[in-house]
């Protein structure tokens, strides 16, 4: 199971710009490396990341082989209403991980 660390403020004022930080454990094997006996190590990366705020997509990213292991993705949004911020990562070999956090907007 992939472990993820999410940093979203629990409370925010309406209209405030909040920073969302996410970190997920993943090897991000590029597919360009070879092992000690010369056999190519197959690609195994996260290919897409999506963030939704109360069901509405607010951030989306495509990930590529040059991106580090355990990718850290940070971005900002405007706190509009209380609700759920959900995250989805998808990748090679059917990889899929999801996390969600609640935010209270006053």
């Amino acid at each position, binding site marked *: 199971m992939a*472990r993820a*660390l*999410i*940093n979203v403020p629990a409370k925010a004022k309406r209209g405030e710009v909040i920073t969302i*930080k996410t*970190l997920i*454990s993943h090897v*991000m094997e590029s597919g360009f490396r070879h092992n000690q006996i010369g056999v190519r190590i197959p690609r195994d990366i996260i290919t897409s990341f999506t963030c939704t705020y109360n069901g509405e997509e607010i951030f989306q990213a495509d990930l590529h082989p040059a991106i*580090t*292991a*355990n990718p*850290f993705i*940070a971005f900002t949004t405007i706190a509009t209403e209380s609700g759920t911020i959900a995250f989805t990562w998808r990748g090679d070999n059917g990889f899929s991980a999801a996390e969600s956090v609640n935010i209270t907007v006053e």
Partner: protein
Amino acid sequence: MNAVRKRARWLAPAAVLLALAAVISARAEIPLAERRSGYADLAPDTKAMQDDDTSNPGMLAVLDGEALWKTKAGNAGRACADCHADARVSMKGVAARYPAFEPTLSRPVNLEQRINICRTERQQAQPFASESKDLLALTAFVGMQSRGQPIAPPADERLRPFLDAGREAFSRRLGQFNLSCGQCHDDNWGKRLIGNIIPQAHPNGYPLYRLEWQSIGSLQRRLRNCMIGLRAEPYEYGAPEYVSLELYLMWRARGLPAETPAVRP
């Protein structure tokens, strides 16, 4: 007869030179007040990465370790938590005291080896492989309970010969480059080796997340890196030579706060 006397005549100045060399090498050790963690040499963004537990990738291993702490294993069907209960209490400051003397083996063991001894003897389970994900995770979890505590090597007389062996290894030249650890980390710390600042080489954040490795790794992995860099043949994982060196490095870093899981470039 004559040859023996001749050798004896040569031995006296050699002994003086050796004594002098011992004085010089003793003086080369970094004074306690000037000791600083490798953290001080980090770029601001790497510091920020280590400081925030939600951006420090070492915390992913700590979370894995926390789960392992509570998982029953082996024929005994026991988890770490069944004997040691809450790690936040029972493991506080423990990592800062390792390597420690293990009476059954008559030599010091590091934290990884201690965990594996517990695993085979108390849990009656297969030991974790060196540098395996699970061993690093559990070590990082136990190590993090000492975060902020000063490194405090045990004042155990039985450790003295191993500490001396570690000190000797630190100043021994090795590899095709014919360099000792001390020539970089005692004599030239703070200067640059190519583009990188030479750190003082304090092991106060292991196991740590190294950006170059893109993973968490042990102090022995780091020592192997250094040895390969010197074009020397590294020891096998778990070799007593490493543990002696770890013991000396911890003694050398005494008083510095533990940072596990640290982040380094």
